[in-house]
């Protein structure tokens, strides 16, 4: 009891001294997708500049709601808001980092990068129309690969997530039937399959269930040594998921003509682009109540774009291409005064 009182006094004292030493502690909240990177960035930023960034991983929808309510200095979302909604709420929006969604399979004899899939076939699998691994639709694009006569088990995310949003957004772009029957959103009414909670839940299910297919973020596929599939991109090439192919998708996307960077980079053009690449977005008030802290938040992102690339790559994210960073800085100068 006594110890805990002494301890809490000490904590309060430390907190008070920290508060006094630093003018602005920037707070942000939103997508869980960027949480590991935000933690790393804010720790390194603190070492470099003594400034503190506090990021809460509460989900994209929560991030959008919190920034609109003005309780945080920046919000984060895996789904871009359209310029109209941004204007209504007085928000600006810019990308923070690139990632990607990867189809992973568990089929005996098929190693990572051996299976090829096209967008329409992937959509048909998740629609429950292609039910066997040796279906002609899969066999015809995988000549020479021994596909088993097994029923496909589909694994999807059970929780609402940006990963699901980007995945079904891609399926809607490549399959009119998917668009009509299921549509897109952070969670959808899946026609078939079972749901795992979080990337780790989907990874665990796919690893345990024979003849399963699911989708996870790249880092989970790599860390769990899962068999990812090659995807045919908009240019017709079969591409492996990697930092390079995600970066290619981000670079080939038409950011210049996207107002407020409101662009989903799935099915991006370009020979080397991974088709299910994803962007995380940061939301801030154009005219923040506390201009000082808004400025501190922008300085943090400017620092992260400049000095945070190695950390991003180490955690299997893809840093933004330099051309895009220039556009973001011009956007800041234009929109925040």
């Amino acid at each position, binding site marked *: 009891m006594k110890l805990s009182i002494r301890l809490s006094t000490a904590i309060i004292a430390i907190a008070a001294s920290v508060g006094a030493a630093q003018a602005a502690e920037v707070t942000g909240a939103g997508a*869980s997708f960027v949480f590991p990177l935000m933690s790393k960035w804010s720790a390194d930023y603190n070492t470099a500049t003594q400034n503190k960034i506090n990021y809460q991983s*509460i*989900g*994209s*929808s*929560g991030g*959008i*709601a919190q920034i609109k309510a003005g309780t945080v200095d920046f919000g984060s979302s895996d789904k871009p808001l359209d310029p109209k909604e941004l204007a209504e709420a007085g928000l600006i929006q810019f990308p923070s980092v690139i990632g990607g969604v990867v189809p992973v399979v568990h089929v005996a004899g098929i190693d990572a990068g051996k299976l090829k899939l096209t967008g329409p076939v992937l959509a048909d699998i998740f629609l429950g129309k292609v039910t066997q691994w040796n279906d002609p639709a899969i066999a015809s694009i995988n000549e020479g690969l021994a596909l088993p006569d097994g*029923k496909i*088990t589909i694994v999807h995310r*059970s*929780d*609402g*997530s940006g990963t699901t949003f980007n995945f079904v957004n891609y399926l809607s772009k490549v399959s009119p039937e998917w668009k009509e029957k*299921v*549509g*897109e*959103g*952070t*969670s*959808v*009414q*899946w026609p078939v*399959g*079972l*749901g*795992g*909670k979080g990337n780790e*839940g989907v990874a*665990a*299910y796919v690893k*345990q*269930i*024979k003849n*399963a297919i699911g989708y996870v973020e790249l880092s989970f596929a790599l860390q769990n040594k899962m068999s990812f599939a090659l995807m045919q991109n908009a240019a017709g090439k079969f591409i492996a998921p990697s930092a390079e192919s995600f970066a290619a998708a981000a670079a080939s996307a038409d950011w210049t003509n996207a107002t407020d960077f409101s662009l989903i980079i799935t099915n991006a053009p370009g020979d080397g682009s991974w088709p299910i690449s994803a962007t995380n977005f940061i939301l801030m008030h154009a005219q923040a109540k506390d201009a000082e802290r808004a400025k501190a938040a922008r300085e943090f992102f400017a620092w992260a774009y400049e000095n945070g690339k190695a950390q991003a790559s180490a955690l299997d994210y893809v840093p933004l291409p330099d051309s895009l960073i220039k556009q973001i800085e011009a956007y800041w100068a234009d929109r925040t005064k």
Partner: protein
Amino acid sequence: MTTIAARDSVPRPRSRRDELQDKGFSYLLAFTAFLVLIALAGAALSMLWGGREVLAQEGWRFFFSTEWNPVENRYGALIPIFGTLVTAAIAMLIAVPVSFGIALYLTEIAPAWLRGPVGSAIELLAGIPSIIYGMWGLFVLVPVMTEHVTPWLNDHLGTLPLIGPMFQGPPIGIGMLTAGFVLAIMVIPFVSSVMRDVFVTVPTRLKESAYALGATKWEVVWDVVLPYTKSAVIGGIFLGLGRALGETMAVAYVVGNTVRFSVSLLEPGTTIAALIANDFAEATDTYRSALLLLGFVLFIVTFVVLAIARLMLMQLQRREGLQ
């Protein structure tokens, strides 16, 4: 003398201080009791209020519709209600006989030195966080279900008439039956410790009279111990059932989280609590409203189940009164 007698016959008025203190104390106690009621009503009503948007949109359909489509904003609670009841029923079907066995063994059969350690071990089970049960279920139980249990059920029970379709399904190991198993293990400590505590209270002379009349152990237990402790045993069972209905994390790991109706217990399904836990973080507007209303539905389901339990108990007591 007379003065003393007079003093004794007329009771002195209570000290005002004592009276006030007593009154204050009784108000304080009443407040603590009502606090629970207020919290309960507050939680239920705020969920109903949060769900008013969907209630206005769907009306009574919400409680009977099998649709759950966040993209088109159409919501119905029937499948999660079904999943909640089925997984809880499976859990109780397994947990009640096992708990009965544990309690009997510990009170009637086990040597005295064994009773303490085994009893404590079972109570320890109750203290394990539910997420640990979920992970254990996913990484240990699911492979066993996939490789051994599901194929066996498919071959043996799956071919029977009537109940056959309940045991036919793909060998994925994730589904309502697995969720029921995990729930059963979580519920056993609650039910068995209540049963053990009340079995101990049965007077020894009752049991010894039965033994003296030549009764077997089973007859003593079934005809003496159980009738004597009936209402407390049923209370314990419903305590466990309450937990099984509301359990979230452990179920979310192994139930498959699919809002789709299936007769088969081997197919993935979902429960009210698991669905809320999965989707709440990313839900906005109407979807959030639907999840809050679903929370209210869980209140009602639990309330109805516990009310039925009370009715059963009253029925039992009345029948005993007639005998």
